[in-house]
């Protein structure tokens, strides 16, 4: 461009020179040169306000730091308190690798023993189902107590949620209790069978009291069967004449 700026037409220098001459055009030049210079000077000189702004930012940063540091410290304290309260929540890696297989074996053995005990106590009808259950338990991966399930770090609540509630056998419940405490084994028949109860409830509606009056005016009636006593009862009423 600079080469282009050099004038190519030497013939027309006069009128161009006239245009360049500020003296020929006094109206077109700057009216107030000082004011224009002031504007330019203000642009050129770095403003002191910027320094102030920097100080404001620094002060704001300091305030933020003073607020944040105690908050972070408080959080750390809270975390340490939680760790102290539940030291087994996050076990060490080495501990998990060494101990977990032994614990699982123990649990399996205890679960098997408990199942055997229950099997001996049950009747022939229940034997088959219990044995089947015990087999299932041994085949399935062991459900360990919350304290001992450290290998996968799965919370016990999650394990319970994953299991179908209706299919959860008694032996599994025993296994969940852990190996340290030996709880009293209760047979399923001792807990009571819910199925006859529902039957009896249904039958109650079918029962109707019957009264039989004999010649000697002894009245025999059937009372409504209760849940505890579902049989056919005969009561003697007080209307019978005394001999």
């Amino acid at each position, binding site marked *: 461009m600079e080469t282009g700026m050099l004038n190519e037409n030497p013939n027309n220098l006069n009128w161009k020179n006239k*245009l360049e001459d500020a003296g020929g055009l006094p109206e077109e*030049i700057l009216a107030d040169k000082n004011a224009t210079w002031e504007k*330019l000077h203000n642009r050129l000189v770095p403003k002191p306000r910027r320094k102030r702004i920097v100080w404001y930012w620094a002060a704001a940063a300091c305030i933020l730091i003073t607020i944040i540091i105690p908050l972070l410290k408080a959080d750390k304290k809270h975390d340490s308190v939680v760790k102290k309260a539940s030291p087994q929540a996050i076990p060490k890696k080495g501990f998990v690798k060494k101990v977990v297989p032994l614990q699982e074996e123990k649990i399996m053995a205890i679960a098997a023993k408990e199942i055997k005990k229950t099997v001996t106590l049950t009747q022939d009808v229940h034997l088959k189902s219990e044995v089947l259950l015990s087999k299932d338990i041994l085949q399935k991966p062991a459900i360990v107590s919350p304290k001992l399930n450290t290998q996968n770090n799965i919370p016990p609540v999650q394990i319970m949620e994953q299991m179908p509630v209706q299919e959860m056998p008694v032996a599994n419940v025993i296994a969940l209790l852990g190996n340290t405490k030996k709880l009293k084994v209760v047979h399923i028949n001792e807990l009571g069978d819910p199925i006859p109860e529902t039957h009896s409830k249904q039958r109650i509606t079918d029962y109707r009291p019957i009264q039989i009056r004999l010649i000697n005016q002894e009245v025999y009636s059937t009372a409504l069967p209760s849940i505890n006593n579902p049989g056919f009862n005969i009561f003697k009423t007080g209307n019978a004449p005394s001999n």
Partner: protein
Amino acid sequence: MDIAQLIREAKQGSASAQKCLFDLLSDRMMLVCRRYVKSAEDAEEVLLDGFYKFFKNLSSFNFQGDAALYVWLKKIMVNECLMLLRKKNVFTIVTEATAEDLPLEEEALNNLSAKEIFNLIVQLPVGYRTVFNLYEIEGMNHKEIGGLLGIAEGTSKSQLSKAKLLLQKNLLQNGNGYVKRKSK
């Protein structure tokens, strides 16, 4: 004070040297700006921007004489003017392939005063005026103009020929004074 000395001091950040340079060059630069930008306020704004860039980039400038300094500063000003015209979107050029290469009535223009020449140029439309200024006064060729304005070379030529036609027309309208002076 010597301009070279002023440049040296201005490079070091001397405000007084910068003011001296501004006082020396601002009038001529204002005339350059006014040729491109019609409004006096806009021209002043362009002048300020141009001088700001000049002082900011002064450290990279090697002083080789007054003419070189003038050319460099003028180039900055012209670029600033073109930037303003582009920003304001007043720079509309209709593309035309054909262009007549009309001769400029140099003699007629030489006989006019600076103010008359200035008024003739300023009266031209923006597109004509810009191409005329760049070609006839700054001495650029059509390729350079096309590159600066983002137009084709042919468009630049047609704009120039139309500008010259319009100038001749305006010269004829003010012909009485021109003829009288020529006859004398």
